[in-house]
């Protein structure tokens, strides 16, 4: 019995020891599993967690109608791990054949066993990618990247700019809006399993929508294309060196088109020379010439000089000390006396010089300054030049030459923006290229509006200027070829000698031909500035640039759906729904007109047309066309007032005699200015 007790005690003891040990193990296990331990958590995190930096996709660039201009597309780049390469010589040989580079270029990278990562080629094409994958070479790997692609190739190349290999903006809008387009990279903490696959962590998503903002430009790509096409034709025709074109919205100063020719392919930007890549409309300054006479006249008006004030044409010669100012075309003879309107219409240097000498350098400089010359416009684009406006005092000869655009330098944008101030009724605004930025995932938008800088003209002054500038595009004006049938066009030509940058003075036989104007003149929508540099053939703006302006302006107004303002006989439409006898109606009106003409030769065809229009309006056929006005040329005031008796129009009268011109005003032509002479 005693022996039995000892044995059972020993058994109990062993069982007890094992039970204690197992309990300790279980308790320890439970303790580790259930009780938090910061040291162990840190160890676990270090083993299984990684911080991954998600690179954002670069935002796209669109035009004002949401057409893609620049997008980021996925691409594969090739890199090598020299330590893992089994056949460096063979790999180098194959790659040299594919990329047409020397074998040594690749061998240098592959034989450096200290490195674990060397770039071979960034942004492979589809063909290259397929070829390299088919070789299945060890040590060569692919990395997914983003590549910038410009859908319109050459169009708008200087404005959009381009990006570098790493995707950073180097020029143009890409550079100006780099911070907005590139977005912010996001660091995400990701847990990985034993195979390295990412896992949830605290239910935080790891599909990260990381992207830069999209930029929507004010540019209309159709207008841009047409403008570039026109400039290209003009360059080819005149064998010019280059050309610049700008179309701004008259109301808001938004840039609708900005062309610099020659241009380059944005998808191969670095192959183009640096001077072509520059947006010369903003970065380059030049002497604008006679387009600045408009501002000399503005200066005169602001000094209290009446529009009817006359200046002697002095037989085309203005002597200032030992210097002589002559007209651009010395053979052309002007009238003995020219008023402000004539000085613009005939582009008289002598007239402009006389005005400038009369008002003085201070007032002239002040006017140029308030219209933005000599300082940046503030457009959202890098590298803008501010131009050159001399400090006071100016000598007499400088005052006279600056009055017609020599001795002062500006950019094309400054000139266009200054004309916009006239077109919109007197407000100088800050031009803009980017309308809004938008988050592509959340849809959040931020509009970037043009700033109203200051009022530089009263509405009355702006209207007077517009009338004067209309005379430039009328018969006998230098800009007659800028006319657009059916519309009033206001503008000014400019043919300026080119400055000799090496020596003093001007280059012989080299000119900058330009035209600045707006359409429709009574209710401007578009301000267009065109400049052709170094035309060899036919360099006068009146015959080279003015017709181009007419074509571009004609396209712009039609694209915008602006109905013509001036009716002429051939423009009358006499059809209505279901009425197929339009032609016969027109014929019957023609016959009546001929009879009427025989009966009373004093009545001009225009007055007959106006009566026909009255009849048509009574029939309600033109009720869809509120913008048509009557063409009442040649009638006396009494006749006109009789014509307009039943019309709800407010009339403003200038001058006396027979009607020379009638200009509608306002959105619905509810006002009309009648100019008699």
């Amino acid at each position, binding site marked *: 019995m005693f022996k039995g007790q000892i044995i059972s005690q020993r058994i109990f003891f062993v069982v007890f020891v094992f039970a204690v040990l197992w309990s300790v193990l279980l308790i320890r296990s439970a303790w580790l599993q259930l009780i938090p331990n910061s040291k162990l958590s840190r160890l676990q995190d270090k083993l299984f967690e990684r911080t991954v930096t998600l690179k954002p996709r670069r935002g796209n660039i669109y035009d004002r109608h949401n*057409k*893609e201009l620049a*997008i*980021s*597309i*996925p691409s594969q780049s090739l890199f090598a791990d020299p330590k893992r390469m089994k056949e460096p010589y063979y790999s180098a040989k194959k790659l040299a054949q594919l990329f047409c580079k020397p074998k040594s270029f690749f061998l240098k990278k592959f034989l450096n066993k200290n490195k674990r990562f060397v770039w071979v080629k960034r942004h492979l094409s589809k063909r290259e990618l397929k070829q390299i994958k088919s070789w299945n070479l060890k040590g060569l790997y692919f990395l997914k990247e983003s590549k910038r*692609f410009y*859908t*319109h*190739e050459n*169009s708008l190349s200087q404005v959009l700019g381009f990006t570098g290999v790493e995707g950073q903006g180097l020029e143009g809008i890409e550079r100006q809006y780099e911070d907005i387009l590139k977005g912010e990279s996001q660091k995400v903490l990701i847990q990985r*399993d034993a195979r390295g*696959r*990412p*896992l*949830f962590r605290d239910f935080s*998503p*790891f*599909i990260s929508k990381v992207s830069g903002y999209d930029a929507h430009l004010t540019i209309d*790509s*159709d207008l*841009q*294309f047409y403008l570039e096409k026109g400039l290209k034709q003009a360059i080819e025709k005149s064998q010019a060196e280059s050309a610049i074109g700008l179309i701004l919205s008259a109301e808001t100063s938004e840039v609708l088109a900005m062309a610099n020719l020659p241009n380059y392919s944005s998808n191969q930007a670095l192959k183009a020379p640096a001077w072509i890549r520059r947006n010369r409309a903003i970065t380059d300054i030049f002497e604008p010439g006679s387009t600045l006479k408009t501002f000399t006249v503005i200066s005169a008006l602001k000094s209290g000089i009446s529009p009817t004030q006359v200046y002697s044409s002095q037989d085309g010669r203005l002597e200032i000390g030992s210097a002589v100012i002559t007209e651009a075309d010395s053979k052309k003879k002007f009238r003995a006396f020219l008023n402000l309107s004539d000085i613009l219409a005939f582009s008289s240097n002598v007239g402009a010089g006389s005005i400038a000498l009369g008002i003085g350098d201070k007032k002239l400089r002040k006017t140029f300054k308030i219209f933005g010359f000599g300082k940046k416009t503030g457009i959202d684009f890098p590298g803008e030049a501010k131009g050159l406006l001399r400090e006071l005092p100016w000598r007499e000869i400088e005052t006279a030459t600056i009055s017609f655009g020599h001795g002062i330098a500006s950019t094309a944008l400054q000139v266009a923006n200054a004309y916009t101030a006239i077109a919109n009724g007197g407000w100088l605004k800050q031009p803009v290229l980017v309308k809004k930025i938008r988050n592509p995932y959340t849809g959040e938008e931020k509009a970037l509006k043009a700033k109203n800088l200051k009022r530089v003209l009263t509405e009355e002054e702006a209207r007077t200027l517009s009338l004067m500038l209309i005379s430039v595009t009328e018969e006998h004006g230098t800009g007659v070829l800028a006319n*657009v*049938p*059916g519309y009033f066009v206001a503008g000014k030509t400019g043919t300026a000698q080119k400055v000799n940058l090496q020596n003093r003075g001007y280059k012989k036989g080299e000119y900058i031909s330009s035209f600045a104007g707006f359409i429709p003149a009574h209710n401007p929508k578009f301000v267009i500035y065109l400049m052709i540099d170094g035309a060899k053939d036919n360099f006068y703006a009146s015959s080279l640039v003015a017709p181009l302006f*007419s*074509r571009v302006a*004609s*396209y712009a107004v*039609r694209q915008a759906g602006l109905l*013509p303002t001036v009716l002429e006989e*051939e*423009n*009358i*439409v006499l*059809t*209505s*729904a279901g009425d197929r006898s*339009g032609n016969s109606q027109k014929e019957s009106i023609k016959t009546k007109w001929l009879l009427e003409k025989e009966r009373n030769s004093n009545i001009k065809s225009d007055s007959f047309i106006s009566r026909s229009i009255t009849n048509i309006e009574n029939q309600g*056929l033109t009720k*869809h*066309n509120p913008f048509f006005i009557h063409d009442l040329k040649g009638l006396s005031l009494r006749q006109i007032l009789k014509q307009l008796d039943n019309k709800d129009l407010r009339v403003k009268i200038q001058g006396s005699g027979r009607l020379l011109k009638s200009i509608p005003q306002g959105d619905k032509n509810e006002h009309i200015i009648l100019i008699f002479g």
Partner: protein
Amino acid sequence: MAFYNKKEFKPFTSLLIVLLTLFVIAFFKITLRRFSYALYQATLTFDKVQDEYYSNVTVYGKMTQTKRLENLAKKHAFDYKKQGQIIQVINGRATVID
């Protein structure tokens, strides 16, 4: 075995509860991991679809280039309107005067 006797089954009840709890916890953790793998697959698919979308956008952008549309229009005898040409649309009927 005396499993029909509830009193004899009682000592195992607590053990069973503990085991069941542990099993449920393990089950939820495994399910979470399965969801993670499914989401990872979805991410890869999303990336592929997004890449395809941007490739299509490139193609669309090239197709709608103004120059290309102009060439296409000319092939079908369309042309730019002449200056002074007016097209009037009244009550849906268009008349061209040039």
